[in-house]
């Protein structure tokens, strides 16, 4: 199985003897080209078109984060899996408002199910203090099938998410307080962790979409064009509670991350290199965690579940099987 490689060092990435080499003052570090699933760049790295072409030839996606650890861009090589038939149908499902909202609703329905699952897991462990939030979310969730249009649905989604985030301080036992979710830039450590986690989720999903016939720019919940690859945002909704939020809770509750992993600069916080590494390690562990899949009758990793979600979308889009999102059964 190929792996993601995470580059934290600085230096120059070169194509050398038909493989990849990172060169810096410490020397040369070779990365086997045939072992790379996707490349994450956190360090300050130079590379040239020769190396980009080489990634393209080998169908490797590259995700780049800036000095502050914010995701900035991805290199998405030319599509290697094309189905004109499926693409036409993917667009059709977007153009038809009834079909579009159906998919968007199922996305939120699934995401909120997984959100509740997290809350219900922690509720008995936190003296039932999450009970109120759970009840409110359950109430909001009932409105999903009756939402009128995407705006309305987004409103419901927003309220669910606000409620959910208000439970984060309880789940993490007050270690990381957060009043309100603030993005761009995040204004406290918890917001920083969420932003970082969500951007990782986006890139992981994008790399999986790349391995399928789905077009990453056509989405249903999010407006295409909201970001370049908006389908990745749609699918991320399903997996954020399962993968990133659980990673964050674990990092905080088990004391793996604390104030020392952040740099306070002006009015916002950012994860320093040590913090990013700890996060990445736990995130990667989560992706590689396996569970038994009932239908497939085999062990699958969380990462693979993302791919399976893409397959389900392909089947839905082509009218083979209605999409039912992944609702945490474990």
């Amino acid at each position, binding site marked *: 199985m190929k792996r993601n490689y995470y580059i934290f060092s600085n230096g120059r990435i070169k194509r050398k003897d038909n493989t990849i080499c990172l060169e810096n003052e410490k020397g040369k570090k070779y990365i086997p080209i045939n072992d790379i699933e996707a490349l994450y760049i956190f360090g300050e790295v130079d590379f040239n078109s020769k190396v980009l072409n080489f990634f393209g030839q080998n169908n490797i996606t590259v995700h780049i984060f800036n000095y502050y650890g914010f995701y900035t861009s991805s290199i998405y090589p030319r599509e290697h899996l094309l189905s004109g*038939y499926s693409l036409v149908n993917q667009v059709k499902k977007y153009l038809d408002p009834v079909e579009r909202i159906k998919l968007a609703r199922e996305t939120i329905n699934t995401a909120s199910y997984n959100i509740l699952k997290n809350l219900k897991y922690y509720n008995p462990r936190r003296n039932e203090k999450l009970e109120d939030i759970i009840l409110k979310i359950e109430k909001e969730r009932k409105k999903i099938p009756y939402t009128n249009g995407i705006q309305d649905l987004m409103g419901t989604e927003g309220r669910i998410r606000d409620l959910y985030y208000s439970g984060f301080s309880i789940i993490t036992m007050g270690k990381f307080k957060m009043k309100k979710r603030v993005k761009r830039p995040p204004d406290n450590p918890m917001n920083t962790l969420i932003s970082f986690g969500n951007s990782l989720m986006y890139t992981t999903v994008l790399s999986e979409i790349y391995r399928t*016939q789905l077009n990453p720019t056509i989405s249903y919940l999010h407006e295409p064009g909201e970001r370049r690859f908006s389908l990745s945002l749609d699918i991320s909704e399903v997996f954020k509670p399962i993968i990133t939020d659980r990673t964050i809770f674990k990092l905080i509750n088990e004391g793996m991350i604390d104030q020392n992993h952040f740099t306070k600069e002006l009015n916002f916080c950012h994860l320093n290199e040590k913090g990013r590494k700890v996060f990445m390690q736990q995130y990667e562990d989560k992706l590689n965690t396996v569970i038994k899949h009932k239908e497939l*009758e085999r062990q699958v990793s969380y990462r693979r579940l993302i791919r*399976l*979600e893409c397959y389900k979308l*392909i089947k839905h889009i082509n009218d083979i099987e209605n999409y039912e999102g992944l609702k945490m059964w474990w």
Partner: protein
Amino acid sequence: MSLSDAMHATGVEVNYYFICKRKLWYFTHGITMEHNSTRVEIGKEVHKNSFKRKNKEIMIDNQICLDFIDKELIINETKLTKAMNDATRYQILYYIYYLENKGIKQVKGIVHYPKSKKREIIELDGEERQVLDKVLKFIYAIKKSNSPPSLEKKRKCKKCSYYELCFS
């Protein structure tokens, strides 16, 4: 449907027809999964390393891909295992049939199994000609159809590169 429509099938399509019609539907609609499969990758590698000196992979009419042809017009095809016997046989029979329709007669086929170092000789007879006539019509219909044949879980599914797509 004219003969020329039917002849638009490729060897792989004939092969898939005998393995699984649902897989054939996905494949002909561009939803391919072969890139995920270690088995397919091994097959390619074995293929690449067998018969190194002969001309490999000859494309005819951009339509059928023959593994290699010897001097006396023998179609050679390499396969990993003997498991998909009918599929392999008809793939080659189709090549012979195709060439016949182009006026090239008396072609023989040989399937090589490099792993077990065995081979099998294949010739086209009248009955098989009729089977192929029908099969080509079915393939044509599957390609034109907007929905795939229904799902059936069989033992062979687990080894198929489309398994995760079908059962996700």
